[in-house]
């Protein structure tokens, strides 16, 4: 119980567009323990990034969180006002490493200036040399030289920028770091470096990670537990072994995801794919949202929404077939 860093209960987030409400997240519930890495996987548009921004209570406009709780160390942060969230939650407790670090750094300021600004805002007027000490420590930690901080973002390569973003996410020593596709835009060599770095950090710093990606391979390397999302809902949560293991997951969607991924050690004759397209979240399908593409759909599946139920210790599934 006390081990739970974050607990999300029935989180609902809708995008209020001119055409109507798009169901970004519906009834999302999960928990994140201290020091563990939770991987979040799913197709594009399944709600992974939305979840990331929601955890920072910063839904992308016109999104609005309209229900549920986000408990951080037992306190519901959704109840706090904007100023409190800004000072106490964002970057203090929860930080984020963004997708496509290309544009995450303001192009007109040096790295040093931006990091100083952040630490000054959160820690008050600390003397510059102390601040720089901290900054340099983390810059070095991510494998960059000291003088990087005097550069402007456009002077750095993609990999370097990504590392800077990681350093920025770390240096206030938050307890939870949300990584949203941190390696997607990078080439495989740099990708490997970043993943190793994150693994190292995981060991050394006892930080909890939420690792969002659609790349199942990197997910497998770094996550302790995996959460599979589809169409704004959680369909399966389990340990690395339970999802990636020999059975390849339980939920039909998970299994097809696994099936669609080529393996090095398995002989694969034909790559499977999942027919159809993700549903329109402006008007989500009834019942289980996967039923239109599921080969094992039953009658019940399109009438009633399957709840997330534990089928074995640490393993939850939302599927009528799997209980």
């Amino acid at each position, binding site marked *: 119980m006390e081990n739970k860093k974050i607990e999300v209960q029935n989180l609902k987030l809708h995008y209020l567009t001119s055409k109507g409400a798009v169901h970004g997240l519906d009834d999302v519930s999960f928990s994140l323990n201290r020091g563990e890495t939770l991987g979040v996987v799913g197709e594009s548009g399944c709600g992974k990034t939305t979840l990331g921004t929601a955890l920072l209570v910063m839904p992308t406009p016109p999104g609005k969180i309209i229900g549920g709780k986000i408990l951080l160390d037992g306190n519901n942060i959704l109840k706090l006002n904007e100023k409190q969230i800004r000072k106490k939650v964002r*970057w203090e407790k929860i930080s984020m490493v963004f997708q496509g670090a290309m544009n995450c750094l303001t*192009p007109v300021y040096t790295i040093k200036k931006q990091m100083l600004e952040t630490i000054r805002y959160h820690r008050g007027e600390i003397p510059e040399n102390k601040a720089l000490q901290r900054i340099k420590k983390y810059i070095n930690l991510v494998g960059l030289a000291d003088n990087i901080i005097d550069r402007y973002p456009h002077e750095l390569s993609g990999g370097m920028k990504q590392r800077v973003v990681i350093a920025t996410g770390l240096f206030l020593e938050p307890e939870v770091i949300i990584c949203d596709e941190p390696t997607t835009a990078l080439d495989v060599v740099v990708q490997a470096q970043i993943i190793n770095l994150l693994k190292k950090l995981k060991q050394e710093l006892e930080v909890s990670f939420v690792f969002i990606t659609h790349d199942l391979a990197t997910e497998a390397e770094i996550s302790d537990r995996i959460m599979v999302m589809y169409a704004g809902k959680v369909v399966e949560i389990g340990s690395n072994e339970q999802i990636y293991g020999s059975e390849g997951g339980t939920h039909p969607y998970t299994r097809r995801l696994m099936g669609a991924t080529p393996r090095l050690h398995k002989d694969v004759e034909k790559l499977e794919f999942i027919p159809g397209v993700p549903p329109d979240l402006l008007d989500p399908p009834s019942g289980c949202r996967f039923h239109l593409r599921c080969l094992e759909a039953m009658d019940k599946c399109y009438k009633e929404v399957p709840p997330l139920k534990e089928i074995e210790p640490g393993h939850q599934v939302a599927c009528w077939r799997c209980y």
Partner: protein
Amino acid sequence: MFGRYIVKRVFFMLLSFVIIIFLYSAIFNVVMDQTLRSQIHEMVQGEIMGMTDSTPQEIQIYREQRIQTLYARYHLEDPTLQRIFWRAVGILKLDWGQASMLTSSNGSRDVFKIVVEKIYPTLLLFGIFAILDVTIGVLLGMKKAQKPGSKLDQSTSIMTMVVFGMPSWWLAMIFIMIFVYTIPIFPSGGMGSVPPPEGFAAIIDTIYHMALPILTLLCIGFWARAYMTRNIVVGTLQEDFIMSARARGLPEKKVLYGHGLRAAAPPIVTMGVMSLLMSIQGRLIFEGIFNWPGMGNLYWIAVQQNDIPVLLGLLATTTFVYLAGLAFLDVIYGFLDPRIKVGGKQ
């Protein structure tokens, strides 16, 4: 690094100026020649008038000789290209010849002097207007950007479009009809009353005369700037680094101004200076309506008197100012955008 950039821009600007002067010289070649010839004839004629004791033959010979000499001095007998070249050189050396009709305030016929003394009034009027225009425009634009789609945003955008095609000089005519003749508040024109007052009263007097022109210009001016500022800022605010700054817990004001406005500054400044430069063109006509004794007014007078040398002198000056403005713009942009200031990837 940045210093080199400045030097490059300035150099290129000067080079452009030189090229353009040569272009002007070529285009206006024929006209300038004719003007010069007739001026020479006039001058020689004047000299002859004073030669009362010479015989007609002597006068004839004198005239021919004189004309020959003068033609040679001004390269009028040279082939075309050479003439073009020499004239361009002359212009660059600020030797702009004599005006056909006009004189400067102390009677000089030197085109350069005539033009130069008109620069100050134009600069004064235009400078003050520019400061006001930019300030109001950018502030309004920022306000609009904070709540895009709001009533303020939409109504001011409509205003922008309404005045978009309105000539400033036309509005000037109307305002004069209303505020000078119908409800006499402002003076009808000129830069100062006659007789000119002294000391502090002179300053007030100038302001009094500047009021209506500036008011007129403002009515049309700042809307477009506000609209574009708003667009640029809205565009910038959608960038990832804004969200990133917010996520880092920075207060909204800091995000909007420190990151948003600062990052949007280069295009805003560019657009700002650019539009000011473009508007120079309209203002020239505008001055004439108010009889404001600046360069624009001089254009009017020179056109009416068909004084070509003055027109060309004006053209050279205007072009120079314009180019200087462009160079200035490039430099400022480079300064604000580190991508240029510091250069590309390592």
